[in-house]
C-alpha cells in the first residue's frame, strides 16, 4: 500500500519534471544572453584569469565560496560534536588488518605524488581545470590513503585545526582588504598581470590557494574523526 502511494507520487513528480525539462519549449524559450557572456568577456579583459569557472567561483560569486567553506567547516565541527563521547579516548583506528607490504609500500610511493598533484591543481587553479576545492580534496585523498594503509600514521588534530583556522581567517581578511583597497568585499584589488601567466588574476589564485589549504585540512580532519570511531 505504502509502495503504491510512493510510486504514484513518483509518477506525478516525474511527469512534472519531464514536461519541464524534456519539452522542446524549454530550450526554445531560453534566454541565452544572460550573465554568461558578461562573465566570459570580463574574465579575460578585467580579471586576466584563463579559467572562467575559477573566476566565477572566487570572484563573481566569491561570497558563495565563503559560505561553502563555512559549510565544510560546520560539517567537520558537527562531526566532532555528534560523535563526541564522554570518556574521549582516541580509539583504535577502524582498520581491521594491517595493509600488506605491497599496499604499504605502494601507498608510501604514491603519497608524495598525490600531494604534489593536489598542490599543482590548486596552484594552477586559475589557468587549468581545478583549483582549491579539487586540489584540497586530492590532498585529502592522499592522507586518507596513508591513514588506511598504516595503523600508526597519525596527524595532529591541533595542526589541522590551526591550518584550517588560519586559511579561513586569511580568506575573510582578503575579503576585507578588498573592501578597504577596492571598495567592496572580496574585490580583486591586486594587479591582474598578463593572461595565462602563473602570477596573474590578482587576488584570485591567492584566495583559491587558501581555499585549497582549508578544504584539505577540513576533509582530512573529517576523515580522521570518522576513522577513529568505533561502532
Amino acid at each position: 500500500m505504502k509502495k503504491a502511494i510512493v510510486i504514484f507520487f513518483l509518477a506525478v513528480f516525474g511527469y512534472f519534471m519531464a514536461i519541464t525539462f524534456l519539452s522542446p519549449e524549454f530550450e526554445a524559450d531560453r534566454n541565452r544572453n544572460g550573465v554568461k557572456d558578461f562573465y566570459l568577456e570580463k574574465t579575460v579583459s578585467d580579471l586576466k584569469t584563463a579559467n572562467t569557472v575559477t573566476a566565477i567561483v572566487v570572484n563573481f560569486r566569491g561570497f558563495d565560496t565563503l559560505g561553502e567553506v563555512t559549510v565544510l567547516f560546520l560539517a567537520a565541527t558537527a562531526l566532532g560534536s555528534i560523535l563526541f563521547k564522554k570518556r574521549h579516548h582516541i580509539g583504535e583506528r577502524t582498520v581491521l588488518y594491517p595493509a600488506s607490504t605491497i599496499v604499504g609500500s605502494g601507498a608510501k610511493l604514491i603519497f608524495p605524488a598525490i600531494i604534489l598533484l593536489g598542490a599543482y591543481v590548486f596552484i594552477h587553479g586559475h589557468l587549468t581545470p581545478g583549483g582549491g576545492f579539487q586540489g584540497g580534496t586530492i590532498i585529502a585523498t592522499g592522507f586518507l590513503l596513508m591513514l588506511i594503509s598504516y595503523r600508526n600514521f597519525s596527524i595532529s588534530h591541533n595542526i589541522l585545526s590551526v591550518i584550517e583556522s588560519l586559511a579561513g581567517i586569511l580568506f575573510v581578511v582578503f575579503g576585507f582588504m578588498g573592501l578597504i583597497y577596492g571598495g567592496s568585499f572580496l574585490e580583486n584589488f591586486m594587479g591582474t598581470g598578463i593572461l595565462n601567466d602563473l602570477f596573474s588574476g590578482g587576488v584570485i589564485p591567492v584566495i583559491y590557494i587558501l581555499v585549497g589549504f582549508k578544504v584539505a585540512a577540513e576533509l582530512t580532519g573529517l576523515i580522521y574523526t570518522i576513522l577513529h570511531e568505533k561502532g
Partner: protein
Amino acid sequence: MVGTPVFLIAIPLLAAFLIPLIGMIWKESVRIIPGLVLAYMTVLSASLYLFILENGTYVETIAGWQAPWGIDLVFSPLTGLLATIMTFMGFIVWLYSYRFKSNVEFEAAKKYFIFLMLLVAGSVGIVITGDIFNQFVFIEIVGISAYALTAFYTGRNSAEAAFKYLIMGSLSASALLIAIIIVYAQLGTLNMAEIAANIDQMNVHYRIIAMIFFIIGIGVEAEIFPLNGWAPDAYTEAPGPVGGAFSGIVVKAGIYAMVRMMFTLFDISGPMKILIVIGLVTLIVAETSALRQEKLKRMLAYSSIGQMGLVLVAFGMGTKAGVFAALFLMLNHAIIKPLLFLSGSFLTFNTTEKYISQITGMAKKMPVVSVLFALGALAISGLPPFSGFWSKLSVLTAAADENLMLIIALVLIISVIEIVYYFRVINRLFFFEYDESVSVKPHKPGFNGMIALFILAGLILLIGFYPASVTGYLDLAADDLLNTHQYIDKVLQLGQSIIQ
C-alpha cells in the same frame, strides 16, 4: 556607522574560524567571543537600520560587480527590521546560554557557540542576500548548524530528531536547487531583482513549476504543513535555548524567503490564495495537534508552527493591512516564543521527557520564572493588554477589510484553542500543589538567564502598552515588501538589464 551589511556575515564567519585558534590559548574566549560578535551584529544591524530609514534602501555589491552580475546584499526597511530582530534574538539566546555547560567539556561548549553564531549569521544571510543561489548556500549553513544543534545532547532521541530534520532538509534543498535550475535555464540570471524584472518573459508553466519547487524548498525552514514533521521533535530534543533560537530566528528567515519569493520573484495572479490555503492548513493542523500534546516543548513547537501558519494567512491577504499584520505577528512571535522556550526550559530543567505534568505546582518553587512563562502564554494567546493582542487584532481588521469572514471565524476559534491549551499549562503551574514525586526538582536559575528573560518580558509589556512604538517601523517594512518596482530599481541602480 560601524560597518556595512557584509560585516553582518563576514564578522561571524571570521570569528567562527578564529575561535578554535584562540580557544587553544584562552578557554573562556569560546563563550565570550560569540557574545561580543552577536552584540556587535545587533548594534551594527540596528544602526544600519536607522541609517537606511533616513537615506533609503542600501544595496551593497560584493566583489565589485554591479547587481545583475555579482551578488548583492539588500538592506531595506523590511530586511533591516528582520535582521535587527534576528541578531537581537541571537544575542538574547547567547545571554541565556552563556553559562550553559560551563561545568562540562570545553570542546562541547566551543562547538555549541560556533553553531549558534553561524545559525544567526546564516539566517541574517538568508534575509539580506539578493541572489537565489546565495540564499541556498545560507539555507545550507543554517541547516547544518541546526542539525548539529539538534543532535547536541548525546541522548537517545536527539540523533533521531536530527536525522529526520536532515532528511527533510536535504530533500527540500534539492527541490530548491531544481527551482534555481529552472529559473537560471529560462532567464540566465540568479539575481532576485533581475528575475523579478523579467519574470513575465518566462513561460507560465515553468513559472508555476518553479514556484512549487521553491515552496517545497523553503517550506522546511518556514515550517509549513506537511514539511514541518521535523519541528516538534527537533524542538523537544535540542537544548533549551536552541528551541528559542529556532522559533525566533530560523523560522523567521524561512518565512521571509518564502514571502520574498511570492511577492517579488513570482508575479502570478493568485499566489496569495496559495499562501492563504497553505497557512490555514498549517494553522489548523498545528493548533489541533498542540491541544493533544503531553510534552511541554512539543506543545510549544506546534504552537509555533500554528503561529507561522497565521503569519502566512496574513501575508496571503496581499493587502497593506495584511502584510502589516503579518509582520507584527512575526515580531511578536520572535519575542514571545523564545521567552516561552527559555522559561519553559528553566521549568523543566534537567528532565529528559519534559512532560507538562512534570511542572505541576512549580509556581510555588520558582515564582519569577513561572510568572514570566505565564506572561508569555497570555501574550501569545492574544489576550489584552499584552503585545500578542495587537497583532491578532490587526490580523482581524485586515481580514475584515477584505470581507474574509471565514478567516475571521477561524482565527477566533484558533485563539480559543490556544487559550485552552496554554491555560491548561498555567493551571497546572499555579493552581496545583507541588508534588515531589512528579514534579521536577526546582533549581536556582542563572543570573544571565534571568536577565535575558526580563529583557524579553519588558519588550512584551512595552509593545503591549505602547504598540505605537513599533507600528511605524512595521508600516515602512510593509510598504517596502509590497513595492516590487522600488526593489528592482534600487537593486539595479543603473537601470541596466542584461535581458533585453
